[in-house]
């Protein structure tokens, strides 16, 4: 019964996608005027704004590190972002996501270039639709690039999961709640390193490898969209000129 609603006999999922299909993704760079860097992402029905402030002085001062920059990350959901109103106070879930998000971004940044400073990443979920941490990481990495922070690579994130016997790419809200496994992954596409890996649900060892591989293939697709969004902001005119020529 539940499998039927998530996947029909033609291999189509509840929202009409195939097993290897991403939801539609749109990234706009430079959307928050006051911020040093910012990005807005629509990832399926997720709508997320990320603003980056820094590098700047650390407050409170004792948090400062002598040899590198402190990275702080806040993942927060607006009260109107979910089906039933979310209390605006930070939940335990948001605290954990803030932490894994920070840890997924940190390996991409050259923090030793900004000793005694702090970089703040503020992720605000205006509408949530499953996979908001991956969408948030994608926007955050683009916003960090927009802020001109020295980095080794972008961070691209995407989830894969299991709907009964099928391993599928990019789990949506319904599949997250009703499906059998959800595995968000963040990946440095050029350095080929995994910086976020979580799983809830059951997978055999073989399914696990397949799922990881699938998620990484999704990250690589996302990476192209991130690059394009940055190119559009910084080389927009040149790109148009090239197309005309």
């Amino acid at each position, binding site marked *: 019964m539940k499998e039927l609603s998530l996947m029909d006999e033609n291999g189509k999922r509840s929202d009409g996608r195939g097993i290897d299909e991403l939801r539609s993704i749109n990234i706009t760079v430079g959307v*928050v*005027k*006051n*911020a040093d860097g*910012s990005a807005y992402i629509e990832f399926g*029905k997720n*709508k997320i*704004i*990320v*603003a980056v*402030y*820094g*590098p*700047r*002085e650390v*407050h409170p001062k004792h948090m400062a590190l002598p040899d590198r920059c402190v990275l702080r990350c*806040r993942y*927060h959901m*607006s*009260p*109107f*972002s*979910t*089906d*039933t*109103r979310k209390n*605006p*106070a930070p939940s335990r879930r948001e605290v954990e996501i803030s932490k894994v998000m920070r840890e997924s971004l940190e390996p991409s940044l050259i923090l030793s270039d900004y000793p005694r*400073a702090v970089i*703040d990443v*503020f992720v*605000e979920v*205006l*509408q*949530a639709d499953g996979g908001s941490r991956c969408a948030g990481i994608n926007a955050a990495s683009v916003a960090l690039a927009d802020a001109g922070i020295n980095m080794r690579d972008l961070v691209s994130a995407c989830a894969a999961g299991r709907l009964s016997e099928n391993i599928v790419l990019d789990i949506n809200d319904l599949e997250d709640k009703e499906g059998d496994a959800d595995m968000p992954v963040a990946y440095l596409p050029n350095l080929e390193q995994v910086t976020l890996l979580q799983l809830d649900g059951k997978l055999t060892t073989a399914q696990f490898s397949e799922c990881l591989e699938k998620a990484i293939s999704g990250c690589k697709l996302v990476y192209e969209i991130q690059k394009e969004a940055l190119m559009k902001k910084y080389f927009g005119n040149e790109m148009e000129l090239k197309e005309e020529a």
Partner: protein
Amino acid sequence: MSSSKRSTVIVEQLRKQQMIEALSRGKRLDGRDFESYRNFEIEVGIIDKASGSAKVKLGNTEVIAGVKVETGEPFEGLENKGALIMSAEVLPTASPHVEPGPPDEDAIELSRVVDRGIRESEMLDLDKLVLIPGKTVYTVFVDCSIINSDGNLLDATSYAVVAALLTSKFPIYEIKDEQVVDTGKTMPPPITTMPISITAVRIGESVLLDPTTEEEACMDARITMTTQSDGNIVAVQKGFTGPFSINQIVQFSEIARIKGEEMRSKIKELN
């Protein structure tokens, strides 16, 4: 790299001198005259999961308001009225000076002044939002997120709330054996009027509408007045440390009515 506090203060002093000099010639630093609002943009229905939503841009100030409708118990002493609950958060995205955490006194004043305009004008007819008298009523949450802050958050937030409520769709509930059941259908909310706030700051003897962050940093006093569709005043808040003369207040009340009508017709076009 952000500048240290001390150098920011020096810059502000220089800008303030420049501003006062410009004001004496009847000009503002961004070229507006005293009674002009900045460019005003509004977009509604941007959050599908909310019953109503609106994004307002007033110059560089950007605010999103979202309406969520649930059922719940009425407030004590207001057993036969729906419940209206408003909140506003200045997100840490909004400026380098905002720290994440519970709302500070400015954010609380902001949501309370916006709330006052909506509540006192009885924009939402709460008498029509009762399901089981004394037991179950509509609970209407209006939550506001300030995404980018460049002055006059009060008016921008208030316009976002009015637009979000005006264009919202409330669920229709049925009473079956003392139980409230969602029918899955929606209705327009019971709207009676449109409260519109107008805010000004006084810098020296100049009274400026729709202040920017820079102007707010130099202000001596601030005043917000909310009028409803018939032109009557429904809420006022004087803010900051300086005073206003009686004459300035009376003059401003006239401006608030005229400007309020202008803004009202802009927001009305949405419906």
